[in-house]
């Protein structure tokens, strides 16, 4: 019974149920969708979004927001693709990409914590600066001719089904999940987002935690950028434009509250799969994938509204329970005297 309750309370379970239901319905209309090969294609297509969503989950858990990850993805992709094209080693390209992510994350983190710039404003500004920097760095040209071996990496599969990228992403997500839920330092993030003054009072370094969250977010965006280079094979100056909104939407779909403190990265990953499979689903239902954004928007609004109404009802229920408990207590206290 306790287990059932726990499952019902876990918000990512309802997201998972939604995902499964969506797949089953589409499968009922068009059975080819449920072929193992297609399912893996669908999952493989969502690695970039999963990484972005897991990264931004750190920041959202802290109760902040980061709208610069699309540009971070673009810049780290441009930098690493240029290095690879010019014959640098893979290691150098990976380190450069991650350095880009760490730098941008650090700037965001310091701006939000030390300079107290509201996070949406700070990251919106950084988004503009980084996006412009991509044009400066690439001179507005496409970065092409990425070595074939690096591009082939995205096609390499484990046991002929799972790409190494997907496998790595899943492992990374699970590891992050355990860090965030089972370790002391990992739980700081949700604590800060849930109750900042409370976290300060019990001695959690609130500002340090937020900076770490932004750096983690930057690193994940950089990793997503590397996978982007490998999958797409070239980088345009607009690479990753608008991905930040999709990552935020994925987190919300996966049950993470933008108010902070609530949600898990597993949920974020499930949300990203929902998010990125919508256009594929539409094609299998023989609609135009033009309606991709419409469906995403409707879904997003419906889910958060339903969630908000449910939460409100639960809060009301808990309040009533507390109230009745208190009155009972008072009656009991009276009889003692």
């Amino acid at each position, binding site marked *: 019974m306790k287990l059932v309750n726990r499952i019902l309370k876990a918000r990512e379970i309802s997201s998972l149920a939604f995902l499964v239901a969506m797949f089953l319905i589409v499968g009922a209309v068009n059975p080819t969708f449920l072929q193992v090969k297609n399912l893996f294609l669908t999952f493989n297509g969502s690695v970039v979004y999963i990484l972005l969503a897991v990264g931004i989950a750190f920041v959202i858990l802290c109760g902040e927001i980061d709208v610069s990850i699309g540009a971070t993805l673009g810049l780290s992709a441009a930098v690493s693709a240029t290095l690879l094209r010019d014959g640098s080693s893979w290691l150098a390209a990976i380190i450069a990409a991650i350095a880009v992510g760490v730098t941008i994350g650090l700037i965001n983190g310091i701006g939000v914590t030390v300079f*107290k710039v509201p996070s*949406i404003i700070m990251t*919106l*500004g950084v988004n503009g*600066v980084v996006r412009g920097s991509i044009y400066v760095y690439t001179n*507005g040209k496409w970065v092409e001719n990425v070595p074939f071996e690096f591009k082939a990496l995205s096609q390499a599969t484990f046991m002929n089904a799972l790409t190494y990228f997907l496998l790595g992403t899943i492992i990374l997500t699970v590891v992050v999940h355990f860090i965030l839920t089972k370790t002391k330092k990992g739980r700081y993030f949700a604590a800060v987002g849930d109750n900042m003054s409370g976290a300060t009072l019990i001695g959690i370094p609130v500002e340090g935690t937020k900076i770490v969250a932004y750096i983690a977010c930057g690193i994940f965006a950089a990793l997503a950028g590397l996978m982007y280079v490998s999958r797409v094979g070239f980088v345009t100056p607009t690479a990753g434009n608008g991905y930040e909104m999709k990552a935020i939407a994925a987190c919300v779909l996966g049950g993470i509250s933008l108010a902070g403190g609530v949600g898990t990265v597993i949920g974020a990953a499930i949300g990203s799969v929902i998010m990125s499979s919508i256009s594929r689903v539409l094609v299998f239902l023989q609609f135009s994938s033009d309606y991709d954004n419409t469906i995403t928007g409707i879904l997003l609004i419906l889910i*958060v509204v339903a969630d908000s109404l449910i939460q409100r009802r639960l809060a009301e229920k808990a309040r009533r329970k507390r109230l009745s408990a208190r009155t009972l207590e008072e009656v009991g206290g009276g009889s003692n005297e």
Partner: protein
Amino acid sequence: MNKKIWKNKLFRWENALILILITEIIIFGLLNPKFLQARVLLGSINDFISICIISLFVTFVMITGGMDIQAGAIVGLTSISLGVLWQDAGLNIWAAVFVAILLGGICGAISGFFVAFAGVQAMVVTLGGQFLYSGLALAVVNLSSSSAFEGISGFPNSFIKLASGKIFGIPNQVIIFIVLIAISYILLHKTKYGRYVFLCGINKNAAIYSGIKTKLIIMSTYILSGMSASIAGIVLTSYLGSARADLGKELTLPIITAVVLGGTSNLGGKGGVFGTALAAVVIGIMRFGLVMAGLPTQYLDIPIGLLLIVAVAARTISSNPGFVRKAGKLFKRA
């Protein structure tokens, strides 16, 4: 006492913005003397009229403590709807304009309803709205006989005149902007409704207890911003002479920048229309001047982004004297 009032008036944020604006005009004038011609300066508004119009009313939303990132998507939706209503539904162009403004209001009302009545975070709802309305714009394109790539063009001359005409030598767009500033200024600073908008942002509970219908007030601010987005869409369509679904896509950053730079707090309760209007012009002139000075348009986000961060950081620091001490402590710990 009297001196203090004067000092407060002198050091108002709006005056700082005017100073920035004058500096900008002087610098760009030195870089390119053509810039200082009245015709060029007034005509430059063509490039940033939509930022000006929308940010005026997004100010209302942000004063109530909300956030609106969907306005850009509504610009594209109303533009293409206007085209389809005129070309494919055969409506009179002015009737189509009316319907388009109504449509913008409805889009705003939908998001506003969810924010106000369902208690969902404004950022999430308007993010959903951004997806929804930009998606609907594509759906509307499919209704028309033109392709999304071409857009709809060939509007009657009277409609084209709306954005490109002049009255007494002043471009119509400047007049539209001034009229809208007047309307929003009176609405926000001179009416009961405006006081309610402020009160919703300062202390929502107090507003509820004093019998103000906060939910309706909050919803109405989103309707206003939606309508302003559709007005921007109409002006842009008229100026470009073609209705497109992807207009306004890149407007979110400049709009929020204008509102925040104008002195409106994103936590609500503080701000003003006049500051926003000035900030929008500061941003617009900066974009225009930098392009005239030879900077490629793609680079424009860098100075705008920096301006946003530096302005907000400077304002926070100046209002917090203990800042330097605290920053030192943080670095010592790290």
